């Protein structure tokens, strides 16, 4: 009597985790995994949005066009500039902020939420807010830069093909600094106090303690956060789309925003997908490179 019941219960026990995770899983497969595969297939086809006869297989044609596309190469160069300056400064300012907030002091509970606030603002609004700040008609930044002698006239940097990318970078640093501060602060707070106290008794100074305790303890968090953040920032075209639309004349495009504007304005889905596929390949190479460096570092220990 009890045998079939037990078997059914066992079957249910195997099925149960799948029942809980299936709805989420199915939705992700249908809206992310399947489109990623289709998107990569587009890269090898001639897909025009408004042309129903298009869609034929064209082999590597899109990638050949890509190699000759000066805008793409410029976007690639800009991706490096954008990602390195955003992540670099976010990390630097975030680390300083985390160290400032690490020890209890009067007023911390008021200051902390305020300095973390930019992290909660929607990206599109940050983009619009900073384009207004950089617009001499309504914002103070060009006038201040002019007064400080940084600009020869109070003009809109976003309209300048040579410096347009600086605008989204400024906005990106403002936005991302709290993220690093929060992550690094959490890591800092997990360092046992006793280690610092022991070092203080041994006569280690503030800088010595920072170098020999804080940095080694933070290093794993720093490495993984910077790696993930780099991929994420390189993939995020929102600020650029909102602030410059990649212009003037594609001068501030990164690869991700170039894909978006190609799809949005150009309607050439095949080519847009080829650019996106190239971005995926580059990011994979980057991730593999980092992982092998990490492997090598672990090996030498």
């Amino acid at each position: 009597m009890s045998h079939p019941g037990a078997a059914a219960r066992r079957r249910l026990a195997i099925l149960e985790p799948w029942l809980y995770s299936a709805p989420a899983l199915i939705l992700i497969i249908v809206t992310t995994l399947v489109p990623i595969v289709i998107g990569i297939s587009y890269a090898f086809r001639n897909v025009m949005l408004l042309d129903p006869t298009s869609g034929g297989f064209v082999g590597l044609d899109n990638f050949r066009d890509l190699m000759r596309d000066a805008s793409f190469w410029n976007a690639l160069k800009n991706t490096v500039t954008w990602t390195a300056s955003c992540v670099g400064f976010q990390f630097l300012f975030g680390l300083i902020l985390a160290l400032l907030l690490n020890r209890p002091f009067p007023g911390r509970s008021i200051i902390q939420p305020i300095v973390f606030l930019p992290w909660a603002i929607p990206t599109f609004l940050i983009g619009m807010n900073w384009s207004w700040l950089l617009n001499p008609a309504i914002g103070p930044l060009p006038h201040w830069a002019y007064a400080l002698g940084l600009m020869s006239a109070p003009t809109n940097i976003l309209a300048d093909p040579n410096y347009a990318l600086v605008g989204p970078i400024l906005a990106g640093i403002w936005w991302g600094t709290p993220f690093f501060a929060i992550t690094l602060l959490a890591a800092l707070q997990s360092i046992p106090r006793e280690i610092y106290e022991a070092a203080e008794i041994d006569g280690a100074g503030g800088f010595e303690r920072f170098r020999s305790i804080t940095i080694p303890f933070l290093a794993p968090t720093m490495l993984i956060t910077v790696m993930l953040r780099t991929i994420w920032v390189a993939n995020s075209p929102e600020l650029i789309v909102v602030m410059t639309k990649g212009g003037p004349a594609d001068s501030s495009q990164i690869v991700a925003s170039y894909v978006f504007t190609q799809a949005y304005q150009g309607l050439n889905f095949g080519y847009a997908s080829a650019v996106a596929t190239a971005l995926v390949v580059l990011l994979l190479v980057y991730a593999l490179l980092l992982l092998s460096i990490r492997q090598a570092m672990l090996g030498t220990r």
Partner: protein
Amino acid sequence: MRGTSLSRTIKWTLHYAALLAYVAVALFPLYWLFKVSITPNDILYKQGMALLPSKVTLDHYATVVGKSDFLLYFRNSIIVSGVTALASTLLATAAGYAFSRFGFRGKFWIVGLMLVTQMFPLVIVITPIFSIFGVLGLTNTLTGLIIIYTAFNIPFATFLMQSFFDGIPKELEEAAMIDGATRFKALVEIVAPLTLPGIVATVGFCFTGAWGEILFALLLNSSPSASTFPVGLLLYSTRGTVEYGPMMAAGVLALLPVCVFFFLIQRYLVQGLTAGAVKG
């Protein structure tokens, strides 16, 4: 002794000065947004660079609320973000619970899949989703955006919920199950109420994510009747004659739901940090 106390004073002065700089930089853009939104048009350009307007007005807010377009966008955004937040939290709670409580074959691959989809550039799915949604008649609908946003929110929301479930002792539902309750009943009646703060946090994260999304909103929904707030504001700002006052008033209004959520959640964030510190 006096030397150390002097150097302490200097140290703390520098400490506060540095923090004050951070506070100023964090608040200034938002202050400027607010300032322009309450500056009357006649002095907006004349005293444009003054830090304080000599008189204030709520006219720009009246214009925004009076403009039926913005109310429509606001309503669309509330529907899209609200439904997205509830749907993704529900699905993520179920999946997060499975990840937390079961070791099962295939779990490694599901977690791997969720992580990998997080790493892919979103732009690669933009064109295929546009084509698929076009065939299904989901472009220019709020439903289309809800489906996409829910899918994109699930991986992070699932990991979040999993960590909340990990913090609740297994023995609680095991005891209920020994007393004859099914696991599902134990989850709904015993575990879920205990994770309520976590569920609220997840709802908040998903809501904010959907509230600010612009790429898919811009591409999929071109008709004004299905536009969300970010698209409405962006398109409004690129029209020929731009009225900065109402635009910034609209920006301030877009900020409100997010700020409310942030100040609810941030205490929790700090608590989480402190708990981590106590554990360490």
